[in-house]
């Protein structure tokens, strides 16, 4: 096996090995120390819970998943929309952008109890928290992406007689897409956190709700199983956004190629 192949494999082999080492070390530590199940379950206990409790875990995971998806979709639509509005209107920029930035000093999860009071135990407040959390990276990356458009390209199009709308469609929006996707990838990962937070405050379903219940009943393996599902969900969504990005920006894979 030559060196190039080793390096190519290393991209996914090394994190996998690291995870295996951590899981193995964890299993060994639990067995050796004899920690009680309710305090620190071993990976094998978590696996057993994943299999045995799947009828409880999966429906709740589905609830969280739909909260994340709806919240993320709202965050992207609102974030891209507002990012464009703030970019295209200097007045809106002056009025709104500082507020958008300042809004980040509000710990959004802390709003969850308020939303609970206002909207009850249903899907609504979780989706709102999720959307609020995901909104910020999308709006900032949309705005910064638009702003990074090459001025000379804009001037080139204007010199050809392009209207402002046409300049936006031909140059500014496509220029901003890599940045928007980068924002969306960050957003989707933290949207999962937002949804769980919404559930922790008060819910009747979802993985966050399940975690609180499991802790109260000393069903620690089930709680860790829920965490495993959450991180799988996060990773999967992150990868999915990356796949959509590849489909939308086929030219990007060429930019890493060296020029002939």
């Amino acid at each position, binding site marked *: 096996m030559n060196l190039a192949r080793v390096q190519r494999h290393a991209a996914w082999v090394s994190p996998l090995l690291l995870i295996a080492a951590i899981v193995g070390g964890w299993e060994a530590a639990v067995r050796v120390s004899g920690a009680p199940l309710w305090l620190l379950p071993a990976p094998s206990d978590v696996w057993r819970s994943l299999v045995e409790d799947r009828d409880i875990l999966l429906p709740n995971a589905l609830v969280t998943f739909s909260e994340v998806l709806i919240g993320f979709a709202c965050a992207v639509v609102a974030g891209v929309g507002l990012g464009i509005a703030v970019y295209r209107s200097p007045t809106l920029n002056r009025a709104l952008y500082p507020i958008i930035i300042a809004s980040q000093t509000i710990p959004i999860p802390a709003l969850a109890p308020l939303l609970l009071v206002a909207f009850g135990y249903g899907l609504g407040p979780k989706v709102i928290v999720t959307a609020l959390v995901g909104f910020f990276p999308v709006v900032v990356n949309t705005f910064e992406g638009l702003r990074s458009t090459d001025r000379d390209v804009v001037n080139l199009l*204007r010199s*050809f*007689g*392009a209207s402002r709308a*046409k300049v936006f469609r031909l140059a500014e929006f*496509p220029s901003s897409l890599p940045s928007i996707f980068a924002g969306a990838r960050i957003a989707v990962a933290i949207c999962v956190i937002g949804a769980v937070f919404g559930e922790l405050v008060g819910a009747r379903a979802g993985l966050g709700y399940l975690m609180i219940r499991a802790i109260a009943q000393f069903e620690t393996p089930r709680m860790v199983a829920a965490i495993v599902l959450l991180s799988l969900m996060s990773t999967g969504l992150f990868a999915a956004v990356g796949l959509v990005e590849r489909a939308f920006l086929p*030219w990007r894979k*060429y930019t890493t*190629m060296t020029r002939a």
Partner: protein
Amino acid sequence: MRPARASRLKLEEIVSTYEEGGQRLTALDGLSLTVDEAEFVALVGPSGSGKSTLLDIVAGLFSQESGTVRLDGEPTTAAQRLGQSAYMQQRDLLLPWRTTTGNAALGLEAAGMARADAEQRAATELWRFGLDGFGNAYPSQLSGGMRQRAALLRTILPRKELVLFDEPFGALDALTRSDLQAWLAGLWEQERSSVLLVTHDVEEAVFLADRVIVLTPRPGRVAFELAVSLPRPRTRAMIASPEFIRDRAILLQALGFLGDSPR
């Protein structure tokens, strides 16, 4: 002697200033020049003589402070000049997300043509620009010379009667540059548009242009004008001809008086 032709572009007493570090600087100070129908005019001058400012003004991107810009004899405002010329800069400004064909079609699309129609027009011209088989390649897959030819195709395709070049080959290596100069001379024979070329390169100016205008250092004004004595069509062999060498010497001397040493 130049035959009497209609003027495509006529600049009268153009004054342009800009602000830098709280100071008002004059880029152009009463510059006047004409580019006739089907005439190739080159502008050479020391850096900072406002050559690029001049092209920005003609393209309509920028307003002059005073003076008149006439297109086909009519005085125009900057806004009216937008879309009247094809402007090509030193940087190719190809969009990385568009293929060669898509980039070449951009000028037509900007002017309102549907993308599919514009790309179809661009595709039929690829071979003439040495881009055959590269229509679906992204800019990052092209060599420097090919990128510049793609940018040229984008510039020529809308068939504007006035073409503005701002050091179009300035970023290329010497060999590729001389290739493209010869090729552009041939292309011009077919197109016969009015061209205003800004360059640092005296040889490029003599080889391509009918007339070379030398600007003074900032503030820019016309210092000197030379009707190039080379016949048309131009061939590469001409760069060894006595006429070429004489014209080049005259221009270098004119520039030398201005205290600058162009290459």
